[in-house]
């Protein structure tokens, strides 16, 4: 069975290490916060200007002045710090954020990512995505392996306008976990019940299967 969104988030959460500063993008990445392993302390960065993002507020406690990069009402935690957006992107650019997790429309086998623009459709803008992918030192993409038409989103070359080049380090999809290597996507794990053959069929980019490839565990 392919993973659902929660499971993708859960699998990515296993990549978190104690002491990490982490930026989680909108969508599946946001869900990662719900699966942070016991004993692993991470600090969540929100690029509008907060370190130490806490959970959503209790009903009635929402504060219009306290939102995350997805414009959702949030809370702080002890040790949180606010700052302006220039410092926020400064710390991203300077490599102080250990891990960025974000969604994508397409990823190529050399680590290019496209996630901001579809020609012919209204373009809403890249927000902070281009800054994040250009500068973050470790980028994991969380996405479905194929688009609604069933076409692979893991490509030899992105067809959509790029958000960033050669920046993605790892991709976690509903079918498996893939490192970006000089040889292309390297399959490290497959989802329970998913076959390597299915992954091969649904991956358009160069794909190698790790010798020690294994079924994902939770």
């Amino acid at each position: 069975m392919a993973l659902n969104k929660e499971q993708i988030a859960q699998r990515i959460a296993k990549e978190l290490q104690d002491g990490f500063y982490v930026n989680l993008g909108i969508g599946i990445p946001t869900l990662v916060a719900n699966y942070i392993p016991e004993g692993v302390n991470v600090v969540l960065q929100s690029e509008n200007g907060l370190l130490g993002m806490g959970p959503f507020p209790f009903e009635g406690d929402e504060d219009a002045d306290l939102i995350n990069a997805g414009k959702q009402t949030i809370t702080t935690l002890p040790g949180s710090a606010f700052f302006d957006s220039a410092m926020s992107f400064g710390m991203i650019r300077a490599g102080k954020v250990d891990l960025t997790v974000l969604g994508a429309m397409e990823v190529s086998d050399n680590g290019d990512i496209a996630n901001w623009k579809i020609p012919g459709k209204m373009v809403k803008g890249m927000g902070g995505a281009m800054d994040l992918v250009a500068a973050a030192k470790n980028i994991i993409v969380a996405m479905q392996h194929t688009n609604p038409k069933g076409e692979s989103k893991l490509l030899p070359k992105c067809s959509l306008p790029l958000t960033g080049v050669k920046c993605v380090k790892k991709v976690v999809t509903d079918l498996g976990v893939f490192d970006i290597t000089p040889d292309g996507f390297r399959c490290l794990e497959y989802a329970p019940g998913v076959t390597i053959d299915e992954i091969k069929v649904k991956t358009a980019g160069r794909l190698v299967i790790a010798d020690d490839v294994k079924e994902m565990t939770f």
Partner: protein
Amino acid sequence: MNKVVANADEAIKGIESGMTLMLGGFGLCGIPENCIAALVRKGVNNLTCISNNAGVDDFGIGLMLQQKQVKKMISSYVGENAEFERQLLSGELEVELIPQGTLATRCMASGYGMPAVYLLAGVGTEVAEGKEVRNFNGKDYLLEYAFDSDFAIVKAWKGDAQGNLVFKDTARNFNPMMAMAGKITIAEVEELVPVGELHPNEIHTPGIYVHRIFQGTDYEKRIEQRTTRKKN
């Protein structure tokens, strides 16, 4: 040194059609609600607005879009706004999309007297088209120019007559950099406090950057994505 003006209408004196304005805020958080309302009343148009977002249909810069006061938006993200989309597709409105960190840093560069900076965002993408690329230590960077503006309009939590400002939580966002980057900077505040009440260690924007300040009224502070959890 008293920079206090009576209200938003007085604060925006001198803003004329065709000017370039910076407007602080991220989404609807920390936006200068009073000055936007005054700009709508004044009816200036053909404005170039530098602002991370363009509001929603009936709030924020969306109110200026309804009145067709904006010629060009310079932003990082302009979703959530049907009228914006209509004007853009019909060619009435021009939009320049800029990565969010680049936008923030180009404002900051102006406030720091730096004419241009080298930034990573957008290298190898269509954002890089026409821009100078330069390699430092094995990495490519884009030369990005400082932004300035005829007027910068920011919203703060507290301020004093000397123009010192303190922001609240994530309502800080773009406001400090834009305050530094206006030829004339207008600050609207929720609380105008007596000079000396803000502790000098806690001031985010020193008064030197602010030319006019007033106490705003009737803040709606609309929430764009109300997300909560239930008490158990």
